[in-house]
């Protein structure tokens, strides 16, 4: 029943697909109930946001924005030769493009506020990335990051120490303590046989990793698989299929609107927009609540290639699609009735030294680790969320390795997929893989790591030097999980999605943002220049005063006898270059006639005696025998 006058809204199939009903994010019902992201701020961390564009300006949040490339508060993108800095603006449009303005398109959370952090358009270091992840983190609720390490099928990289610390700090202290929500795109390395478990942003437990599917629900050519993918949503596919319609910049060749936004870059902002809708109905959802609701509500659907497997807790996961398609109606109704999950519990195994050779396929190296009840007693960990494995492996060709992890239930996760492009001889050094496929399963039991060498070289084999298992989860029991699943299914009718129903929601912590006021270099330069100028003139005037005092002292000494002006060199005198300050004094003689001694007033500051006047009127001789009437001298 929702109608918008935005000219491209009918082409926005991801919002409401008339051609293939159901192939959309199922958001119109949520909009009908006035859930539009009101009160939530989403920040696009990218190459800038052109916030002056009609579709973005009314929803733009300058308070949540910053430009880390130019170090100023305005994240406007800078045109460049490749006409490439429209990326952030397009992502922003997907999230919060303003409806019914007869311009271009509509955003998923068109009632939310949109901010921009410009960080990709210039040299990027760990410290800049760390600043970006926590920038205005009490204002920005959701950080949408459609970027990552190279998707070339041979890179193993992710946030380093600082970036990890910032992500962790964000989930602990961001958003009044409920935790910043970091949404990342899983990667576009599909054509290079890449896997997003080699991307530390995607396989971080602190991020919501979003993959893409095309309008037919299939994994597009560019998409990557991975065991740490939470869910997918729509984006462009191959040439025959439609891409995402969204706002564009209007610089260079931009028209303010595009029908060509694609890649996992286009999927992540849609997920960020749907999370904004969730936070409107339930602002006190923690970062883990959001991840849980995605796991509980993402929908599996028919796709022969997807290789869906249902785990012990009843959740179906696919390396291609995560737990399935995001569905705004399901996400928002679940958020409405969701009560927070228990605190995060974790278990870390000792570093398990193996130093075992990795045989060629079809043989495999299998190592086990048993997590006993005693091991878990301290943390209380009962059911799983993320499972991480940190490995050190030597091998002459890293891409030939295949790593699989089996949880106690037998659920298999391909955590390290072979990569035909990766010929790096450096192996893995404390690299952490992770999986979400065991979500909700019991934590106790035997974990099996199976490593194979699928390369075809028969030369030296690889060695598994050591590995370490880390379990993340909570005290929830399998029964608690089943109860929650039932509660959510009962909410999917929408019966709670009205203002009359709302669970208590704590207000969150008052956490001061420490960044205070940073003086921008321009301001600083101005201040310094003004300061120098002030100092110079102060010194000058002090000198001036001092010298004039001195000459006044000298002239008052004249009162008692002939004046002896300070010795002036003949040469200087002849050349007329002598400079001295002669006080402009008015002296009244007996007749009250004012006479003025000293030269005419010279330019301010330089009192240069007029030679002519000087010779005729040297400073007044005050004859000693005058009655004791004090000579009046006014200077």
């Amino acid at each position, binding site marked *: 029943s929702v109608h918008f006058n935005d000219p491209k809204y009918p082409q926005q199939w991801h919002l409401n697909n008339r051609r293939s009903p159901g192939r959309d994010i199922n958001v119109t019902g949520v909009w009908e109930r006035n859930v539009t992201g009101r009160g939530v701020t989403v920040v696009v961390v990218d190459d800038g946001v052109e916030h002056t564009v009609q579709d973005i300006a009314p929803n733009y949040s300058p308070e949540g924005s910053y430009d880390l490339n130019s170090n100023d508060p305005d994240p406007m993108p800078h045109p460049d030769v490749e006409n490439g800095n429209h990326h952030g603006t397009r992502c922003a449009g997907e999230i919060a493009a303003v409806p019914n303005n007869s311009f271009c398109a509509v955003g998923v959370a068109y009632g939310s506020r949109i901010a921009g952090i410009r960080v990709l358009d210039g040299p990027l*270091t760990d410290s800049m990335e760390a600043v970006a992840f926590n920038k205005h983190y009490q204002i920005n609720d959701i950080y949408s990051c459609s970027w990552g390490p190279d998707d070339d099928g041979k890179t193993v990289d992710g946030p380093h120490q600082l970036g990890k610390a910032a992500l962790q700090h964000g989930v602990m202290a961001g958003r009044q303590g409920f935790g910043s929500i970091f949404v990342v795109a899983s990667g576009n390395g599909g054509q290079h046989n890449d896997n997003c478990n080699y991307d530390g942003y995607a396989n971080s437990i602190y991020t919501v990793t979003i993959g893409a599917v095309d309008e037919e629900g299939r994994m597009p050519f560019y998409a990557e698989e991975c065991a740490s993918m939470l869910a997918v949503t729509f984006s462009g596919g191959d040439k025959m299929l439609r891409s995402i319609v969204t706002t564009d910049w209007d610089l260079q060749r931009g028209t303010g609107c595009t029908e060509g936004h694609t890649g996992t870059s286009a999927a992540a902002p849609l997920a960020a927009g749907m999370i904004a809708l969730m936070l409107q109905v339930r602002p006190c959802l923690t970062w883990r609540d959001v991840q849980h609701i995605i796991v509980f509500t993402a929908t599996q659907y028919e796709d022969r290639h997807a290789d869906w497997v249902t785990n012990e807790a009843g959740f179906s996961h696919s390396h291609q699609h995560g737990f399935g398609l995001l569905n705004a109606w399901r996400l928002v109704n679940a958020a409405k009735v969701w009560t927070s999950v228990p605190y995060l519990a974790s278990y870390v195994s000792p570093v398990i030294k193996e130093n075992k050779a990795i045989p060629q396929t079809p043989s495999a190296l299998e190592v086990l680790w048993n997590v006993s009840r005693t091991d878990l007693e301290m943390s209380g960990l009962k059911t799983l969320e993320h499972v991480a494995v940190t490995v050190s492996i030597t091998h002459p060709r890293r891409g030939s390795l295949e790593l699989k992890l089996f949880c106690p239930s037998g659920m298999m996760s391909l955590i390290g997929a072979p990569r035909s492009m990766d010929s790096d001889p450096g192996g893995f050094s404390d690299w952490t893989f992770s999986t979400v496929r065991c979500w909700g399963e019991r934590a106790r039991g035997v974990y099996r790591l199976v490593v194979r060498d699928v390369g075809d070289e028969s030369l030296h084999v690889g060695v598994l030097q050591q590995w370490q298992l880390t379990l993340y989860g909570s005290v929830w029991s399998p029964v608690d999980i089943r109860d929650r699943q039932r509660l959510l299914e009962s909410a999917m009718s929408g019966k709670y999605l009205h203002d009359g129903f709302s669970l208590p929601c704590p207000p969150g912590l008052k956490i001061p943002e420490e960044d205070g006021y940073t003086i921008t270099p321009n301001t600083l330069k101005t201040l310094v220049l003004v300061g120098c100028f002030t100092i110079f003139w102060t010194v000058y005037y002090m000198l001036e005063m001092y010298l004039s005092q001195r000459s006044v002292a000298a002239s008052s000494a004249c009162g008692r006898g002939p004046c002896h002006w300070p010795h002036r060199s003949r040469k200087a005198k002849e050349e007329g270059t002598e400079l001295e300050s002669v006080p402009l004094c008015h002296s009244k003689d007996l007749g009250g006639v004012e006479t003025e001694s000293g030269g005419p007033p010279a330019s301010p500051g330089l009192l240069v005696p007029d030679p002519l006047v000087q010779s005729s009127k040297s400073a007044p001789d005050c004859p000693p025998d005058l009655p004791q009437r004090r000579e009046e001298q006014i200077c």
Partner: protein
Amino acid sequence: LAGAGGPEAQHPGGLSWAVHLHSRADEREEKTLEQRADALAQAAGLVNTGRIGELHGHYLFVQPAGHGQAVEVEAVRQRAEAALAGHEDVRWHSEQRLLKRTKR
């Protein structure tokens, strides 16, 4: 001036180090931590540009302007590494490198 304005204002092209300092029990004030960071940066021949974002105890030290020659740069690097590696206050430090990140 170019380096001022906090870690946001990266020192494009110059060497820089991220440093995480041990914060002492009695150290409530950010101020004293900042002063220790200033002193440490000076000892290492660098300039402390301030705390990195919201990360308590994390500071960005940059190479002072004016060291352009490769030889000088290497000398700055060695001096800084020697000073930071052995300092009891330093929990960890890492020289900042450019990250390769691509839009998706």
